[in-house]
């Protein structure tokens, strides 16, 4: 293992249950088998994963494909490439209290929505409004840090919050709320914004200099995904091993939530975990280009590379909650 390649990998955020596949792969030596020494660091946001990779500080990361699209528009040579699409459903959603009187998306007009600046949910609101024929200028946005959204929503300072469902759902849980009973969720995916979201991305430099390592990395993560889908408890053990400060109960639920809502879908069952459908990706790029008013629409092939994916048969994910 003197020839081990070191790969610096950044997560999308602080340690979360939904990252379990990476920890599991590491703990079970999947990376080693591929001749890789993967160093996993916590992240500062799934968008920032892209910057971290572009700046050269990291070789790979778990981050948002939409941030790649944004950057690929202006800096096609520097933007990272998605090599393994993990979440094939968008987590972008608007959450509101059932008591707020908002029953349809039309009711957002005249209300104040809390949003964290620059997050896709916030940024795509105008497209959301336009696609659903809402009067966008009637929806007011109040900017705030992500972890203030739920408290402000609970307190009633805002009428709804522009969130990632996987984050917000558990934030509400942690704020001793019942996110299913008392809250209403409007998922962007259901309203014409059928986007992809987080996955494993790598730098162009790594692809150019060491494609074998990339393939190995994807293979290892894929094995981790499939294993964790079978046994979340083992996944959580690996996560706890990485960071002993996590709240295992909540994070395990988060892991399961990610499979339920973001990973396991009709499309995944069809094409296997990690892959994307090019036409859907192209549509998604169109939405992002529109939403962010990008100068250039990158091709789907600039964003996602199928080249490193293991064969379809190896990407058969069977999710069983336990």
């Amino acid at each position: 293992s003197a020839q081990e390649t070191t790969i610096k990998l950044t997560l999308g955020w602080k340690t979360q249950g939904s990252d379990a596949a990476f920890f599991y792969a590491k703990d079970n030596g999947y990376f080693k088998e591929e001749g890789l020494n993967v160093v996993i660091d916590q992240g500062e946001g799934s968008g920032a994963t892209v910057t971290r990779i572009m700046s050269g500080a990291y070789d790979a990361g778990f981050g948002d494909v939409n941030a790649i699209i944004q950057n690929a528009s202006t800096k096609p040579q520097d933007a990272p490439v998605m090599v393994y699409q993990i979440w094939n459903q968008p987590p972008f959603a608007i959450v509101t209290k059932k008591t707020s009187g908002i029953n349809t998306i039309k009711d957002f007009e005249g209300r104040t929505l809390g949003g964290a600046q620059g997050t896709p949910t916030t940024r795509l609101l105008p497209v959301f409004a336009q696609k659903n024929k809402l009067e966008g200028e009637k929806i007011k946005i109040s900017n705030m840090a992500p972890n203030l959204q739920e408290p402000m929503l609970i307190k009633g300072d805002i009428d709804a919050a522009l969130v990632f469902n996987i984050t917000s759902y558990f934030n509400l849980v942690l704020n001793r709320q019942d996110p299913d009973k008392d809250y209403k969720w409007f998922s962007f995916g259901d309203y014409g914004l059928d986007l992809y979201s987080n996955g494993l991305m790598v730098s162009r430099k790594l692809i150019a200099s060491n494609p074998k390592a990339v393939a190995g990395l994807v293979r290892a993560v894929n094995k981790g995904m499939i294993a964790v889908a079978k046994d979340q408890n083992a996944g959580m053990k690996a996560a706890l091993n990485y960071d002993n400060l996590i709240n295992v109960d909540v994070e395990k639920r988060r892991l399961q939530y990610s499979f339920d809502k973001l990973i396991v879908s009709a499309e995944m069952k069809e094409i296997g975990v990690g892959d994307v459908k090019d036409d859907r990706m192209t549509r998604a790029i169109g939405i992002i280009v529109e939403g962010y008013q990008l100068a250039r629409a990158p091709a789907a092939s600039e964003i996602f590379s199928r080249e490193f994916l293991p064969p379809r048969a190896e990407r058969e994910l069977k999710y069983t909650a336990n």
Partner: protein
Amino acid sequence: MTASDIRQKAWSAALIVLFFVAWELFCVMTGMSDLVLPRPSEVFVTLYQKFPLLWPHILQTLATTMIGFVLGVGLGVVLGAVIGVSKTAYDTAYPLLVGFSSIPKVAVVPIFVLWFGSGSVPAVLTALSICFFPIVVNIATGLATTEPELEDVLKALGASKLDILWNVGLPRTMPFFFASLKVAISYAFVGAVLSETVASNRGIGNVMMTASSNFNVPLVFAGLFVLAGLGVALYVIFSLIEGRVTGWATRKNDLIAT
């Protein structure tokens, strides 16, 4: 004298320009990505182009910072005077204050936001809470180290503690008060911007947050330059006041007879 003064200033200005030139060269030579450290020329261009857009945000940040700063100075002077004069206050308040200022204010901003709503109030409070400590420390130290000989002049007249504080302690402390203002004003900006990045719809902090999520690093740096510029501008104003107020303490420079 005036000629040499101008030469002096020109020399300093040249050195400052040199700093930016060095930075530019460094970026060009290392092929630094503008996502990490943009070239100053790029930043200035962005600043120039976006200035009309930035202007209301600058005003907003300047206003909240100044309010927080003024309140912070007031609080700092009062606390500093109390700590400098009373041993009990020294032993009690100092540890609490040191403890409080060892806390990153980012952790406190959400509390302010939940209590006072997002916007200007938390920004003012954050600026205040971050900037008053250097003032407390310098006022307290200045008072504690005032030469007893100077105080005796007033004590012999039967002056009250307040008289002594007012006529000896505070004037004697002025040079260090102004020194702490330089620190405080910088930190006040940091505080206000910090709060704006957490929860606000206006202000440089908000702009920088948006710019950074758009990967528009030159605009982030334009924001930083604006902050630095505002800090320097206020520093210059304080320097002018300082020159008038604390001339006695820097008299050394006058003594050269030519």
